[in-house]
């Protein structure tokens, strides 16, 4: 899939910055959505089985209500599941421009898996109509959807973790990178537990808060759903924090910084607030905190995404330097083209400015510094401005007694000519004196 790389043009500094913000925002759409999809499918499947074998209509009803309430429609799947991955593909390709990792390929693979998983979840939802007649078909579809979503989470965890390990970019050739890395296992475990925890919060929000709450729930059912949602949120939030700590331990040294650890502590603090509200919901009969739990979970996702971003920026320390250099070259090229079009001409005055800005660091007229004295070398050109201009544009080592070749000053042709004119003019004046 190298052709995908060729579609990405060399990025300007502002494009790179926008790409980084887009990664944060689109991750904030994608990760909670897939997490809730996974969690609701798992719980729905579990309750469907439990309802069948215990012959309990409450569980069977809850199983259906979970997918009806939390899945959303195809529009939601497109906006929160598919489009963010396409956006992430392009944004990551921008920030990893010029590297030997084909990140677009891994995101495309994740996109196909996600699409298949979403199709399976909707087939699973549709299978509720004929659940009683074709029960095992219903279960198999649920298991396939669950498997697809689990693979999506793994592929996503694997792809974004790969970015933290520049040393592995040249070594990875499999479709899903870093399959056997502890960092990926830890990240995947964290995402799995978080998925279940945020599903609990989503149950509380969408069943009791969003649009006035779900209608037609009797007291027993209401109480069960509330306790289940709050209990899952509380228990699995604590477990997910353990996974989060494990993930932090597995991070490579280049990803670490004060900012990374500080944002991790903020994430843990936000999760503490979530758990306190979830515990209050378990204890109290009121539902006033139902909406707050889910909103706080979105805040938690934001902080974790920022934490991921900081770790990524740390790992891409050298890549960011490379992108800065590319940006400087693009800017210089645009300025050169602009100067050519404006018909700038060489002059002694311009040459003097260039001498004072660039040449004076290593050259003087009357003494040898890092470079030779101009009074010694300029007369050798016998007044040939063009020859001196060509040397300035393409310097070569002439005298081996000097420590280095004169570095190319990246002057435009009319600037080199100006410098040559000034040097010859000034040497002539000094020698005349």
């Amino acid at each position, binding site marked *: 899939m190298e052709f995908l790389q060729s579609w990405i043009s060399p990025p300007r500094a502002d494009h790179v910055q926008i790409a980084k913000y887009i990664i944060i925002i689109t991750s904030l759409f994608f990760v909670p959505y897939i997490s809730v999809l996974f969690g609701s499918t798992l719980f729905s499947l579990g309750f469907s089985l439990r309802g069948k074998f215990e012959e309990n209509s409450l569980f069977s009803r809850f199983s259906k209500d979970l997918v009806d309430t939390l899945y959303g429609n195809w529009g939601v799947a497109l906006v929160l599941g598919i489009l963010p991955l396409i956006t992430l593909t392009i944004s990551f390709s921008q920030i990893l421009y010029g590297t030997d990792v084909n990140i677009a390929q891994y995101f495309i693979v994740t996109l196909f898996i996600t699409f298949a998983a979403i199709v399976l979840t909707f087939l699973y939802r549709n299978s509720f109509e004929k659940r009683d007649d074709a029960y095992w078909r219903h279960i198999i579809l649920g298991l396939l959807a669950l498997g697809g979503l689990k693979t999506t989470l793994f592929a996503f965890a694997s792809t974004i973790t790969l970015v933290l390990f520049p040393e592995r970019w040249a070594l990875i050739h499999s479709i899903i990178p870093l399959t056997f890395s502890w960092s990926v296992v830890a990240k995947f475990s964290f995402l799995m537990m978080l998925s279940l925890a945020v599903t609990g919060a989503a149950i509380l929000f969408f069943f009791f808060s969003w649009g006035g709450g779900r209608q037609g729930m009797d007291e027993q059912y209401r109480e069960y759903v509330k306790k289940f949602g709050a209990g899952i949120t509380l228990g699995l939030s604590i477990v997910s924090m353990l996974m989060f700590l494990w993930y932090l331990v597995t991070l490579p040294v280049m990803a670490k910084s*004060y900012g990374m650890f500080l944002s991790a502590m903020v994430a843990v603090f936000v999760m503490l607030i979530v758990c306190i509200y979830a515990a209050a919901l378990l204890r109290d009969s009121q539902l006033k905190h139902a909406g707050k739990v889910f909103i706080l979970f979105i805040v938690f996702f934001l902080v974790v995404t920022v934490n991921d971003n900081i770790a990524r920026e740390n790992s891409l320390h050298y890549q960011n330097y490379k992108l800065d250099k590319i940006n400087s070259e693009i800017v210089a090229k645009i300025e050169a083209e602009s100067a050519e079009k404006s018909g700038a001409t060489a002059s002694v005055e311009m040459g003097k400015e260039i001498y004072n800005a660039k040449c004076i660091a290593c050259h003087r007229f009357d003494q040898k510094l890092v470079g030779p004295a101009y009074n010694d070398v300029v007369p050798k050109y016998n007044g040939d401005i063009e020859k001196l201009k060509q040397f300035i544009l393409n310097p070569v080592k002439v005298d081996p007694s000097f420590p280095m070749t004169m570095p190319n000053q990246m002057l435009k042709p009319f600037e080199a000519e100006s410098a040559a004119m000034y040097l010859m003019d000034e040497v002539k004046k000094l020698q005349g004196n």
Partner: protein
Amino acid sequence: MRYAVPVLLTGLFGLFILAILGMTMFWVDWEKPDEQPIAYPHDFHAGKGLTTLSNGDQVTGLGLECTHCHQFVTKSKFATIPALSICAECHSKLDPRTEEMKKLKQYIDNNEPPVWQRIYSVPDYVYFSHKRHVNYFAKNWNVQITNGEACQKCHGDMRVVKKVKQMRTLQMGFCISCHRANNAPTDCWTCHK
């Protein structure tokens, strides 16, 4: 009783935050290098093309060969840091334009070498020879040593770097992967002599 659960939760999450603080302290003590005595810009010295100095001046890189400073990389197991005399070749004659150049001038005037902080190091029980690796890369990968192409595998492209940072974990898996890919020996005594 009403506040028992919130207090318990606060205590538990407090432990989690303490664990992160512990990780931070471990990183500070064992992994994070101290600041360098001078903010030496590799991109200006080794790179070519436009770059920005610490005082904001936009200049073009010198394009120095890596071996100009790291002189023993092809002859020794250590790449070595340049002696102060290498820096003084140019900097004893230049007017210091930036604060960092002023610091260097002071070191030169006092004939006192800066105490550079080591960024890359392997444990004592690991034997690593720069000479063997760099000469192998140059011969078998068709890369140059002088312009740093042979160094990029482990150190990244130093020609664009302002601040050096450890960019490879240097864990055993990193070494073994490359040894396997290049049919180099992977038996224990190759590296654990």
